[in-house]
């Protein structure tokens, strides 16, 4: 057994099967001399290859718009001129001229800083390969001979390669080259096949028909695995498949009640990686991204750049709101590189927004990163633990200060970015009406709110049985917050555990909650619950909880 580790996963999942190795054909240019009188004829050969490629690509573009891009590139006069000039001025044959031109463009793209742009080198390579095949009169299907499901192992796969591939016979992809934004990565992700890219040395380790076990989540490839390894991964795969099927069946449907009332069901996440999985589960937004991961898994206060990159990575992944909560540290969460003074009562102590407002530079670093990332997706900023309108105003003023700095520096950000707050203290419930006039949205944090309203530490075994979000005081608080929000035309969400309590769904729905946010695993079930409710019923049901 041989094992290979890969650190970058393009698309998660497990595959067990035989290797099919994609043979590379030689696209080296033939070396023949061209006499001066035949040079023009040689340029015409290129033009002919282009028109053939155009015909092929027009057909392919109907199914996949990446070929629409190839079509425009192949028609680009800059490319044509570059090949023609090499023929006419340097006396190259058409194949050499194309090869040189391709090499120049590919190396240019490969040297780019931006990873996405860099991966476009593969498109140029693919296009020039297509032209070269036409010039060399090669008609080649690299997947000929596949008649059973296999794991495709290749140096790299171009869009033109995969267009020839019958995906029914593919269990997974392993490529030696390529990045996570390469074409094969995107295809694999879209159809949910495991895929590992940049697997250095894979082609030297595998021969056709070798049995392979790949776990793309862990980034492991086993070649000639032992029986125990096969058994282990077969079982793991079976479990994953079942969960995936169940989730997929349910999560595709939107959260709309039987009488057509639509609410948002979003995810609570604690890292940028988690955001990647959301699309698979048809989750379109994030109701709570805890930014603490950037601070806690670090050796220093994260820099603006570090934070910007992380927020940007999340912003890319989602279509709807991405609510990012500013640092919520203190209480039970501390930092390895910052000393917190001992407090008798940390939950009533120096935490969350209180720290941010005092450590203004640290706060501004985070806000600037959030603002800068806001052009990449619908990011919303959310402040935790607000108790006074002055705090909200001060925090918002600092946001404005950051916006001004960015404007002066000509750094783009979303001018319309929403700034809202958590409602998780009794003070913010009682003053909800005031807050709703100045916040762009509310999100009720029921975990802390329940603890603060009931004066119960749910971590304390002796009193944890008193912790109950169904307590009339908590329910009444939630109702007030929703009503205050709606009276001021702002949306009210909930990101505490109560939002994923299956017994609370109908009540919350009936009280008019706009957004339910919870861990990804709960989403399919809660969505199903919502679909099984009628909004009219839920409203009447919620009224029975009303305090006179």
């Amino acid at each position: 057994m041989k094992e290979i580790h890969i650190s970058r996963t393009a698309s998660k999942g497990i595959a067990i099967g035989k290797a099919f190795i994609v043979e590379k054909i030689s696209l080296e240019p033939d070396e023949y001399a061209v006499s001066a009188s035949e040079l023009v004829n040689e340029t015409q050969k290129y033009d002919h290859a282009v028109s053939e490629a155009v015909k092929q690509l027009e057909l392919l573009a109907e199914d996949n718009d990446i070929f629409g891009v190839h079509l425009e590139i192949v028609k680009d006069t800059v490319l044509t001129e570059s090949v023609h000039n090499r023929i006419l001025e340097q006396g190259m044959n058409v194949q050499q001229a194309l090869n040189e031109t391709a090499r120049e463009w590919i190396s240019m793209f490969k040297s780019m800083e931006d990873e996405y742009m860099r991966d476009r080198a593969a498109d140029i390579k693919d296009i020039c390969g297509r032209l070269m095949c036409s010039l060399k009169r090669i008609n080649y299907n690299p997947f000929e001979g596949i008649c059973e499901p296999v794991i495709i192992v290749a140096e790299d796969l171009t869009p033109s390669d995969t267009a020839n591939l019958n995906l029914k016979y593919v269990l997974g992809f392993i490529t030696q080259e390529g990045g996570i934004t390469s074409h094969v990565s995107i295809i694999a992700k879209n159809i949910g096949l495991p895929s590992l890219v940049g697997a250095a040395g894979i082609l030297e380790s595998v021969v056709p028909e070798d049995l392979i076990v790949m776990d793309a989540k862990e980034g492991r490839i086993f070649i000639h695995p032992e029986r125990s390894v096969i058994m282990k991964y077969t079982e793991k795969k079976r479990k994953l498949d079942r969960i995936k099927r169940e989730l997929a069946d349910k999560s595709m449907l939107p959260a709309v009640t039987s009488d057509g009332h639509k609410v948002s069901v979003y995810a609570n996440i604690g890292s940028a990686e988690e955001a990647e999985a959301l699309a698979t589960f048809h989750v379109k937004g994030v109701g709570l991204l805890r930014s603490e991961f950037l601070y806690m898994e670090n050796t220093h206060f994260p820099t603006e750049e570090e934070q910007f990159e992380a927020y940007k990575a999340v912003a890319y992944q989602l279509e709807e709101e991405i609510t990012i909560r500013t640092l919520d540290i203190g209480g039970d969460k501390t930092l390895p590189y910052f000393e917190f003074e001992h407090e008798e009562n940390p939950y009533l102590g120096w935490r969350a927004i209180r720290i941010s407002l005092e450590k203004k530079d640290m706060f501004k670093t985070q806000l600037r990163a959030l603002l800068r990332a806001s052009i990449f997706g619908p990011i919303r900023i959310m402040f935790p633990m607000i108790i006074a309108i002055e705090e909200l105003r001060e925090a918002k003023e600092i946001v404005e200060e950051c916006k001004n700095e960015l404007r002066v520096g000509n750094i783009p950000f979303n001018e319309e970015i929403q700034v809202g707050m958590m409602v998780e203290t009794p003070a913010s419930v009682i003053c909800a009406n005031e807050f709703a006039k100045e916040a762009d949205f509310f999100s009720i944090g029921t975990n802390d709110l329940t603890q603060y309203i009931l004066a119960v530490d749910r971590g304390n075994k002796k009193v944890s049985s008193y912790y109950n979000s169904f307590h009339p005081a908590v329910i009444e608080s939630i109702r007030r917050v929703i009503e205050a929000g709606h009276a001021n035309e702002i949306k009210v969400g909930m990101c505490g555990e109560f939002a994923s309590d299956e017994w609370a769904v109908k009540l919350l729905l009936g009280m008019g909650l706009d957004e339910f946010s919870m861990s990804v695993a709960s989403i399919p079930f809660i969505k199903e619950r919502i679909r099984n409710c009628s909004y009219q019923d839920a409203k009447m049901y919620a009224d029975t909880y009303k305090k006179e």
Partner: protein
Amino acid sequence: MVNQTITVKNKSGLHARPAVEFSKLAAKCKSNITVFFQEKRINPKSVLMIMAAAITCGSAITVECSGETEEEDLKILIEAIESGLGE
């Protein structure tokens, strides 16, 4: 000659598809068009030249048109970039 500076908002910058959209539009315009980005001068009628310029999200580019239809052409191009070039 007219020109205008604009910020590119496409998530992955003027990569493949938006670059194609832009070059198609530019090719339809009668004016001479030049795009300035950092120190580069780009002929936007070529999709390859646009892609090669590696214009990432958040970059400011200046579009310059000259010719009889320069006003209309500039307007068309700026509006297209503003609206995200089909993305």
